[in-house]
């Protein structure tokens, strides 16, 4: 029987259907679950109260990242340095005891495998193409970069997955973001995804799963694809996907939890079928011309507030929608900017290179390539580089990248979410600006009153050198 042409999303969805209820709600099997300290304590507590167990402990991996300070974790004698904030310490201690209590593999603060959940999953081969992957964190969309259907969930759903290894879901609509042509030299995956969000808006993908298609993504490295898919949620889509290919297989082969031997061969044969069929249709389609994408930065307090580095701060009245005009004015007030200012004249006092969006080895190499032989500008008071995991940190140190950063006057930290969100000691002071490789420029996101400009790792490095937002292509 010839089957209807299906999109990649529909194939993964159909493959995980346990059963469909009469009302259309589907019970979907979850292959991989990542757990961190912030969104899990209430879920474990609920299991304890109801006397429920974790159904498949080997399909869950726990690692602290959000709260964990990124300063040294061991003292000179090799003892753990206690965490100063009592609430953070309590939340981290809860994960450290919940994981073994429920039989879940846990990588603690001083383990080489510790890192940001969305860096750890792919680099250990725990995240696999064609898998359903969830985590109590909206940037779980990241794992779509290796061809997994991955999305963020709330704590009640964390509990549901722990107890049943399933979720009750309704099928999403499909959205294609097709990028045609090639990116110009010096334009990175981060610039592209910022440009895409600027085009579709923060609600552009609501109710949809995005599939990114086109030669640009085929030629993009796996780490670049993870960066793109990571920010799908900033476009409103709970998940973003890129079809797995030879690059994906080469990236995963031999990693700790990736399949081995005969399993590997069978898995690859299956993964090769995971692409959208010719003739399959999407509910929504957006086409982007890659040649129009420039190094991109944000000016406001929503990730859709993007402009190319050569552009200017927009005037609120330039937007057609009255509520967007109001929001733009509020953004400019918060950001301390005037319409018409050149983006490249905006001075920054802080630089953050890190987060689940941009803390992998390629990101650090891109930043180091700009910083090599240069120094941080005097106006930049605080500049930190936070590797995404212990393994990334180790690799960067083997390549001498840490020395490049330190010689340029930046701090080299321990892995964690750091200044991406204001819940650990790494914060941007009120009314100061930060060129940040993270994913959200919301009001107060990097600390109360902090002003965030989202950029790529190379652009963050360029800002560190000049003390203002800068087109990295101008630094020769």
């Amino acid at each position, binding site marked *: 029987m010839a089957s209807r042409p299906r999109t990649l999303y529909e194939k993964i969805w159909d493959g995980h259907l*346990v*059963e469909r209820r009469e*009302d*259309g709600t589907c019970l979907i*099997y979850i*292959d991989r679950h990542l757990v961190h300290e912030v*969104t899990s304590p*209430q879920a474990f507590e*609920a299991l304890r109260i109801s006397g*429920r167990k974790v159904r*498949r402990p*080997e*399909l869950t*991996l726990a690692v602290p990242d*959000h*709260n964990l300070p990124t300063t040294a974790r061991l003292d000179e004698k090799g003892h753990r340095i206690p965490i100063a*904030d009592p609430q953070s310490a*309590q*939340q981290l201690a809860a994960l450290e005891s919940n994981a073994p209590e429920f039989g879940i*593999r846990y990588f603690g603060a001083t383990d080489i495998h510790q890192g940001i959940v969305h860096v750890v999953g792919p680099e250990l081969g*725990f995240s*696999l193409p*064609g898998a359903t992957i969830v985590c*109590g964190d*909206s940037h779980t969309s990241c794992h779509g970069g290796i061809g997994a259907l991955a999305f963020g*969930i*709330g704590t*009640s*759903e964390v509990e*549901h997955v722990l*107890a*049943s290894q*399933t979720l*009750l879901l*309704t099928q*999403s609509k499909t959205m294609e973001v097709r990028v045609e042509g090639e990116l110009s030299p010096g334009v990175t995956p981060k610039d592209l995804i910022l440009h895409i969000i600027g085009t579709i808006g*923060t*609600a552009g993908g*609501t*109710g949809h799963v995005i599939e990114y298609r086109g030669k640009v993504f085929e030629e993009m490295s796996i780490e670049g694809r993870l960066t793109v898919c990571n920010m799908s949620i900033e476009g*409103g889509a*709970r998940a973003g996907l890129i079809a797995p290919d030879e690059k994906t297989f080469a990236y995963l082969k*031999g*990693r*700790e*939890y990736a*399949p*081995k031997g005969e*399993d*590997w061969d*069978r*898995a690859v044969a*299956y993964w090769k079928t995971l692409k959208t069929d010719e003739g399959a249709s999407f509910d929504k389609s957006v086409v982007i011309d890659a040649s129009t994408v420039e190094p991109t930065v944000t000016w406001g307090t929503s990730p859709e507030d993007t402009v190319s580095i050569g552009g200017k701060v927009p005037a609120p009245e330039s937007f057609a929608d009255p509520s967007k005009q109001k929001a733009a004015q509020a953004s400019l007030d918060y950001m301390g900017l005037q319409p018409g200012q050149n983006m490249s004249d905006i001075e920054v006092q802080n630089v953050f290179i890190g987060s689940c969006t941009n803390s992998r080895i390629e990101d650090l190499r891109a930043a180091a390539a700009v910083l090599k032989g240069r120094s941080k500008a005097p106006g930049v008071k605080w500049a930190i580089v936070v590797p995404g995991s212990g393994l990334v940190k180790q690799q960067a140190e083997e390549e001498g990248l840490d020395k490049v950063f330190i010689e340029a006057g930046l701090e080299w930290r321990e892995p964690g979410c750091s200044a991406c*969100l*204001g*819940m650990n000691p790494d914060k941007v002071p009120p009314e100061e600006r930060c060129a940040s490789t993270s994913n*959200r420029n*919301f*009001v*107060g996101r990097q600390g109360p009153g902090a002003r965030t400009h989202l950029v790529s790792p190379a652009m963050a490095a360029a800002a560190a050198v000049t003390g203002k937002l800068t087109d990295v292509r101008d630094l020769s």
Partner: protein
Amino acid sequence: MDPVREVEGRAYPFGLKNVDTDIIIPAHWLKTISREGLGEGAFEALRKDENNVFDRPEFAGAPIIVAGDNFGCGSSREHAAWALLDMGVKAVIAPSFSDIFSGNAFKNGILTVALPQAAIDRLMEVAETDPISIDLENQTVTTPFQDRFTFEIDPFRKHCLMEGLDEVGLTLERDSAIAGYEARQTGEMPWYAKGTALSA
């Protein structure tokens, strides 16, 4: 979970678009290991403005928020739903909601009612002076001025809310179907079944 059938009372005329979960509850409030007490941190940054709608005395304890498009976008933190519950909010009416937030709200018995912008504009006006009524069974929002708006809701969610059902308990009753899926997967695609049990 307690059944939810009707929500009636004053509504905060909030109206803001793209309210992200960092606005609803900033990250420094997420260090708790409990679901309680987050109301104190709800809308913290906005509440620094002394004219903010959430601290106007006539709205104290209001069970409804009327908001703009794309409410609850951003992070997956269920703390946003817990914070609303803790401040006494049982329903949010807006033109649209982020997918993750509406799921979190539902799981905590908070109704998310999607209505067109024109209806929101009218409810913003009514909310300034009068109460609003939401009837889940009949899927209507009404005002004392004979306004009547109908809304759509997923039938499964409606059923769970009206009966106060525990979703985890419901799913665990499907154990044989889940076990059947697992047996098939272990046979056909064993690489997904191994997880952290596999180590190099």
